């Protein structure tokens, strides 16, 4: 067996701030994960379909524009529709604490806000990936 954890790193919506997504992508690569980096301006539909084709274990969403309450739950919903019920969905960006319970209820496993060390994200994935 030659198994690797596969992670889709994606930016839904129109936000172009990809510093965080790129730093996280590199850190995950350096932690031994296979990272499928899809860049900016993706629709939740494109993200879910890419996750399906790539059979990833984790979908990592990054968003700084404030549209997370619309776009994150939509991505989770579409993943489920496609039968990807075992994918771990995590999110990051400028996300107020008050929004986190709602996102978790919608199926986002964890939300990482500014200042989170990448090592914490790596550990979370290793512990929670199915």
């Amino acid at each position: 067996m030659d198994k690797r954890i596969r992670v889709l790193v994606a930016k839904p919506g129109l936000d172009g701030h990809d510093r965080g997504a790129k730093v996280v992508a590199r850190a995950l690569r350096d932690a031994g994960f296979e990272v499928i980096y899809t860049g900016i301006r993706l629709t939740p539909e494109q993200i879910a379909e890419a996750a399906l084709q790539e059979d990833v274990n984790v979908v990592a969403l990054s968003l700084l524009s404030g549209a997370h309450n619309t776009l994150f739950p939509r991505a989770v919903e579409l993943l489920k529709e496609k039968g990807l019920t075992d994918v771990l969905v995590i999110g990051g960006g400028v996300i107020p604490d008050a929004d986190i319970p709602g996102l978790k209820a919608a199926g986002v496993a964890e939300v990482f806000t500014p200042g989170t060390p990448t090592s914490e994200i790596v550990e979370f994935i290793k512990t929670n990936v199915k």
Partner: protein
Amino acid sequence: MDIVNGVLSGSRLALSRAITAVENEYDEAVEIMQKLYLHTGRAYVIGITGPPGAGKSTLTDKIAKDFRRQGKKVGIVAVDPTSPYSGGAILGDRIRMNELTEDEGVFIRSMATRGSLGGLSQKTAEVVKLMDAFGADVIIIETVGVGQSEVDIVKTADTTMVVLVPGLGDDIQAIKAGILEIGDIFTINKADREGIDRLNIEIEMMLELNPKEVNWRPPINRTIASKGEGIKDLMETIANHQQFLNESGELEVRRVERLKTELLAMINDQIGRYVVNKLTKSGEFDTMVNSIQQRERDPYSVVKSILASVLR
């Protein structure tokens, strides 16, 4: 989930899971391949290789879109190198193909080389077969042409296209030796850059020295993939090569050759694994290595005696 029936009935999830099984060498992979093999052999396979930054993904995107306009179902395998330091990889080819993601007639899979010696080309070939059984009419394998393993991957294609760009300087010298001789078609991408004529001449000269095929002289196309320029001519060239392969019987010849290589590789692999497994379990393997290291025995007679016992 019944993966085999899923793949045959066009389930994208089943195909995706089947690819993972093959890639991760799950136990069920062999069974899946066994059951699907007889449904393969229909797809036309194109290999695209070239140096980093040549615009292979953008070109793949445009070619795939053109095949879609012809109503063909397309599979894409994009191979990127694994980091030797961490074992991880960043697979970024999809970024240039995001539009294709929403097209149900296209299935894209990114693969990392995972540093497996030789095994990668076999895995790629198996992924191609899975897409074939899934019903893809055309399958494109895209990989960076930097080493022998990438060349091996591309050899599993019916038509191989080498993509180059002007202005890479000395890099081309290193690349030339490896991948120039495998090209059925050459494409000079980013053809609006300086140095295109020189590159054209260089390729011509290489081809003079290496007449690969008597009946097919590899044409040299020019494209600006980012603007979609030159794609129409390129598609014609690809169609011509496909036609040549069919009419000349070369397709049969190549596929039989490939089959031989694959079969041999599988025999080697399976028997090797079987023997090593058996010897490792019994502990004999370490004893043998030890005795060879101590110069008590030589490896040649050790292998001979192993064979004798296996074949008994």
